[in-house]
């Protein structure tokens, strides 16, 4: 397991290592810095606003981060193996347009479930093509997914010639509106389940651990008998599927799909993963960290809104936070 250095220091400090403590620290391995950042951020907002720490607002934040959160899980896998996926925003748009086209009465009218399946297939295919461009054509991931970003966006626009598709069945939009047990919408639940499943996958499955080997050194992984190429293809495909799923969640939240949605989401997603402690050179990162990264971005946006800060200044603040998060991480590593 990826015992981070600070986590193991922590254990060394407390001497004994209780089993549950070990499991908890494994879940948030390498994320102490971002976690402290998140806690401080929440404290500051609790003190400066009287609306931040309310159930209603916290639920709002959760709703707002579902799209980012789901995409960031896929991006974590890609960044873990030393790759990058710039196409997730466009794939999100393409998948949601495919769903709208297949499901909506004005077009194929095959129903939402068929639309969802079609959307996920198309999104997975986009990811697989990116993966094959990386593993077979040997394009750098940056270029391969930059190409896919353009292609998917173009395809998304072609479906309706650039116009949006509005109006889905109530049951579908309710997925993001109705809060079961008083707090949990289906979409938020989906994000949480996915995060847990992928955290377990990365921590406890051989295939998940193999991704750390690939990111650490693809050649070492290959010589160790790990099927680097096929895992790489799978990772990009899964990243695509998750981007597609995020597109469906967005469609449910907005009750519409448009080809221009998801613009710039790839950068938010990468930012969340990186704030969560992942290294762009691969081999370092975790779902726990990414979750914290997503929460930091979500809470920051929400808090700045509550404080009435203009969206332009918000962009500046988020940029500063990215630089700060990665810089402190780099300093900390160097200090060891």
């Amino acid at each position, binding site marked *: 397991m990826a015992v981070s250095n600070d986590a193991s220091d922590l254990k060394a400090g407390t001497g004994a290592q209780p089993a549950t403590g070990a499991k908890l620290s494994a879940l948030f391995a390498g994320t102490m810095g971002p976690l402290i950042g998140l806690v401080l951020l929440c404290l500051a907002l609790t003190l400066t606003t009287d609306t931040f720490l309310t159930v209603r607002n916290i639920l709002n934040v959760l709703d707002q981060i579902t799209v980012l959160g789901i995409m960031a899980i896929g991006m974590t896998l890609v960044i873990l193996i030393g790759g990058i996926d710039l196409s997730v925003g466009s794939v999100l748009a393409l998948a949601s347009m495919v769903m709208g086209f297949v499901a909506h009465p004005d077009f194929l009218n095959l129903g939402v479930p068929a639309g969802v399946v079609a959307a996920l297939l198309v999104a997975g295919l986009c990811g697989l093509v990116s993966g094959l461009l990386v593993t077979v054509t040997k394009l750098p991931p940056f270029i391969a997914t930059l190409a896919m970003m353009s292609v998917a966006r173009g395809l998304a626009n072609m479906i309706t010639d650039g116009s949006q598709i509005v109006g889905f069945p109530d049951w579908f939009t309710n997925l993001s509106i109705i809060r079961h047990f008083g707090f949990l919408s289906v979409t938020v639940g989906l994000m949480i389940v996915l995060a847990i499943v992928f955290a377990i996958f990365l921590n406890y499955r051989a295939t998940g651990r193999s991704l750390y080997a690939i990111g650490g*050194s693809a050649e070492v992984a290959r010589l160790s008998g790990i099927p680097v190429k096929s895992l790489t293809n799978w990772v990009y495909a899964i990243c695509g599927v998750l981007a597609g799923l995020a597109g469906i969640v967005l469609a449910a939240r907005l009750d519409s799909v448009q080809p221009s949605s998801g613009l710039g989401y790839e950068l938010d997603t990468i930012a969340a993963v990186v704030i969560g402690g992942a290294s762009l050179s691969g081999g370092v990162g975790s779902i726990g960290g990414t979750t914290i990264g997503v929460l930091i971005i979500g809470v920051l946006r929400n808090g700045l809104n509550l404080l009435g800060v203009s969206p332009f200044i918000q962009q500046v603040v988020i940029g500063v936070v990215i630089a700060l998060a990665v810089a402190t991480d780099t300093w900390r590593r160097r200090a060891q």
Partner: protein
Amino acid sequence: MSPDPRQNGSPHNGLFVNGLCKSYGPVQVLADASFEVRPGEVVALLGENGAGKSTVSNIIAGSTKPDAGSITWRGKPYSPANPAAAIEAGVGMIHQELKLLPDLSVAENVYVGRLPMRGGRIDRATMNAKASAQLKRLGLDVSPERKVRTLRIAAQQQVEIAKALTLNAELLIFDEPTAALGGEETELLFQQIRKLKAEGMSFIYISHRLDEIAQIADRVVVMRDGRIVARHERADIPVRTVVEQMVGRSVERMFPKLSPPGTDTLLEVENLSSPEKSFNNVSFSVKSGEILGIAGLIGAGRTELVRAIAGADPISSGSVRVAGKPIHLSGPAAAIKAGVVLVPEDRKAQGVVLDQTIGENLAFGNFDHVAPKGWVFPKAVQKFAEAGISRLGVKGRPNQAVSKLSGGNQQKVIIAKWVSRPPKVFILDEPTRGIDVGARAAIYDVIADLARSGMAVVVVSSDLEEVLGLAHRVLVLSRGRQRGILERSEASNVAVMELATS
């Protein structure tokens, strides 16, 4: 041994190093180091990794500052603030990892940072002509306009030397210059050093290859644990003496006693060829318990051959059988499954993931064992790692990052990764490259144990002594062709080199 130069009267115009000290935190890496380099001589600086050779060289070359001590160079106090100041003073260093810009031309590399200008533009004609002249002086016939990337390592090194010469260096520090060179290339380098020496240049020569020292050095300085432990006025001292001074104890035996091989043939290689013809039509077999050494010059195709057998590179024709069964060389995974494992040549780039723990690194090749149903539990990894660590005697804990280990221990981690399977054929490519002399003996013991446990072992090494000391038989490659297989009794330095250079 000569007396301490501080008590030595006769001043000369060379380099005097006086009582240099350097500490990093509580660790003293250099303590009271003093020696001299006279004009026109080659001083060999010997010592294990971490003995302080690099620290001394870096101080002289201006990239590290000493805590105490002084240097006199050409009769004047000398304390370079940075490498540029050292170069200005005529002191250059050729690093082990060459510091060239691979996509620029040879001439651009020689003149980088001081490109000749005319009318605000780079004067390429002058630059190329001057660079060409320097290269000719070194006996190197390459176009100055060629990209450095396209040159062989040896030629790239010559470019570095040419660069130092155009900077009017009077003292050149070589850090392991022959680590990546073959026999002929080494000889060429030595010729150049002798020629430049005759012109009055001085050299500090760092190398792990002790056999070279007698050939090239005039005097020898031996370091251990940051101190200078011996100064020899001559270079033709017995290797054993030097090794003992380097490791600080008497070296009983470098090589373990070999047990006789078994009778079962475990590895059979038949007419194996690579697509690029880096090796061609190679056939041999290795028995259970036998160690086959593969010798040859750099570029003879040794690494390519063993990588192909381990499934790491494709082959164009031929076959490999393991314990009588043909194996399909589709990739490393297939070879590992068939019982063929490789400890690759470049430990840090191919052998271990440096930033990850020993436990992780051991698990990476063994998920079939550590995670039988695909579930990896930290406890299982820990247990597996502890077994490997104790079996190989690795100085480390399962949750320690591999980057924190010494080279010898890193190598043991890579061996530990495979040893538990257990494999039928164990291939080690340059198992002691960059590893301290003292730690090498431990690796040799491990290799002998692998054979004793019944595996067929193949060892590739550029260190001839190592091949001769370890192997039951020695296969010699030259330019991709198999020149012969020598029995241990007939395998001598001379016999192997004759075949290797044929």
